[in-house]
């Protein structure tokens, strides 16, 4: 009798505690490439989110509810990512944060859309926001916005007449390559070599030899991190002399770490960079990231950070945890740093989920990316 009473009391207490805990937290599902080819991007994305979650919870959470962050590793496999987005939603995720690789996002964003769950992605393929999905939002500009920002650099700064493009043959690479070729055509610059490579390719000898033979004025390099590093190493090995210009990844901290001296001189347009320490929010984030994880953050870390903070800001603008109302609010929204400091830079989203904000041109000098110019929001 005594045991039965004790058991009933314990069960009741546990259920009450569980219910109380459920009421005090809001779940965010972080679905990212934590292993496989996308691990450098995914782990930075995750760690940026972790810092944001810690800060948000320290400030009382979102609408007085603490964030409960759950991590899901896609293994850089689109099909796995789709299953994990469903798993995160089944687990009660209010917002999905991820994925980074466009090939995965294109597959898994339909799941979030079908469940009316807002999704912040780190992907940059143009077609992600062209599918009419009202629940997907970028954390950096898509290639169709980022790559055109490079056109004045090729035309006016490098004064290039003939260029080449070396790109990774996945959704990310194809998107950037198509926009670049169109941009060069419009600018009257001839593309004399078009060199695709495979995701996770290890040997770039033939690619670089082909570029060397074409002898362009500059090469546009559009690949993921590890591929970019291997390309730069091979470029150095074969003494590829012309300027190598990329969009975002080419000058990332991870690429510089992997490529070492081979990354010296590489130039890139970056939507956001941890080296822009003149921007107060970015400087503070970079410092905290380095103290916490003992390494420099990449732009993916900043994207994850911004995604998590935007979740808080927009939910509080809406006033309730409602995925549909959240998405509606996001379209056409502009968040100013003056009112929302953790957004880091004044940022707007259009009616398709595309974002725009000021961006930077950087160059690797003495083993570190240095800001060499700013590009206004387009």
């Amino acid at each position, binding site marked *: 009798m005594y045991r039965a009473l004790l058991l009933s009391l314990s069960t009741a207490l546990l259920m009450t505690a569980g219910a109380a805990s459920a009421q005090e937290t809001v779940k965010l599902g972080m679905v990212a490439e*934590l*292993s*496989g080819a996308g*691990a*450098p991007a995914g*782990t930075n994305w995750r760690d940026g989110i972790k810092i944001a979650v810690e800060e948000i919870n320290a400030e009382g959470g979102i609408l007085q509810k603490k964030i409960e962050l759950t991590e899901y590793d896609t293994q850089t496999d689109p099909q796995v990512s789709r299953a994990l987005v469903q798993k995160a939603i089944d687990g009660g995720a209010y917002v999905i944060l991820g994925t980074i690789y466009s090939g995965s996002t294109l597959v898994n964003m339909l799941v979030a859309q079908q469940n009316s769950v807002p999704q912040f992605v780190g992907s940059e393929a143009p077609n992600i926001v062209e599918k009419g999905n009202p629940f997907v939002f970028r954390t950096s500009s898509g290639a169709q916005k980022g790559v055109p920002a490079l056109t004045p650099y090729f035309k006016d700064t490098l004064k290039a007449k003939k260029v080449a493009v070396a790109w990774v*043959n996945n959704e990310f690479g194809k998107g950037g390559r198509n926009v670049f070729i169109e941009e060069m055509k419009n600018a009257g610059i001839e593309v004399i070599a078009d*060199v*695709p*490579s*495979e995701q*996770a390719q*290890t*040997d770039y*000898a*033939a*690619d670089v*030899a*082909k570029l*060397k*033979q074409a002898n362009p004025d500059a090469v546009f390099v559009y690949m993921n991190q*590890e591929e970019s*590093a*291997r390309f730069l*190493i*091979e470029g*150095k*090995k*074969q*003494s590829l002399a012309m300027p190598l210009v990329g969009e975002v990844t080419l000058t990332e901290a*991870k690429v510089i*770490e*992997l*490529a*070492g*001296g*081979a990354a010296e001189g590489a130039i890139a347009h970056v939507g956001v960079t941890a080296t822009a320490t003149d921007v107060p929010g970015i400087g503070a984030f970079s410092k905290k990231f380095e103290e916490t994880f003992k390494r420099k953050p990449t732009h993916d870390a900043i994207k994850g950070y911004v995604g998590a903070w935007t979740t808080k800001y927009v939910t509080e603008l809406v006033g309730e945890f409602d995925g549909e109302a959240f998405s509606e609010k996001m379209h056409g929204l502009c968040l100013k740093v003056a009112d929302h400091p953790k957004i880091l830079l004044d940022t707007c989203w259009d009616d398709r989920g595309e974002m725009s904000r000021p961006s930077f041109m950087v160059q690797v000098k003495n083993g570190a990316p240095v800001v060499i110019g700013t590009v206004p929001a387009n």
Partner: protein
Amino acid sequence: MQVLLSGLATGSIYALVAIGFTLVWQAAQTVNFAQGEFVMLPAFFVLAGVSFFGLPLWAALLLGLVASIVVLGILFKKLIVEPILPHGGITLIIATMALGILLKESVKEFYSAEAQPFASLVQSAHVDVLGAVLSLQDLVNLAISLTIVVLLTLFLNRTRTGRCMQATAQNPAVAEILGVNVKRMILYTFIINAALAALASFLITPIYLAKFSNGETLGLIAFIAAIVGGFNQIRGALVGGLLIGVLDNLTAAYVTAEYRAALPLVLLIAIILLRPQGIMGTSEGRTV
């Protein structure tokens, strides 16, 4: 010319790995499907030497070589090949597949899934040869690989130990009757295989970067190279490796980059249909 040289340099490293396949086949009548991981692992031994023990690169490379010989040579033979071989070649093949997965996942667990930088043995520079600008690193890689293959061939054909190893490979029972210490000869074979894998690792990782998954492609290409060249001949593995390296680069540079990964498989099918024993292989007997 640079395309050709790069192909030869990469191909010579494939050849080192392919020779490993041949050696293990001769010694244990099995295919070591963990051979790719045997090339991936030594680079991480070196990284451990540098980052955990603070060794200079040359000492870390030495540590990597010794650790590879112990783990991938001696322990592989004692703990996996010897206990499993009596149960049949197929069982051992499956065991090597499992070993490959174990090595890969262990490295991933220990070093994370991210690629790691790996210092090159050669400074990045170029050399002018007949008007063509060639990579010094490619030239050195090619020279080292070919020298090792020549030395190995001389060792096997011109020394008493080498000839004992060949006798053991051809007919262990008769070799034993003739006084050859068969067990020791087999152990030597495994040690040589481990050393070759370590060397291939040190040469290729500065270009590929150190990553747990490096063995997947390398193992497959080297396996195909061994079959294309002739699985029962060292010179066959050399020819197969060089051929695949050169054809891969020429295809990617002048034909199609998209389908370059299919080339070794196309070559494999053609060889199996037209000359099943491989380009340099013989359809009878085994030699090392």
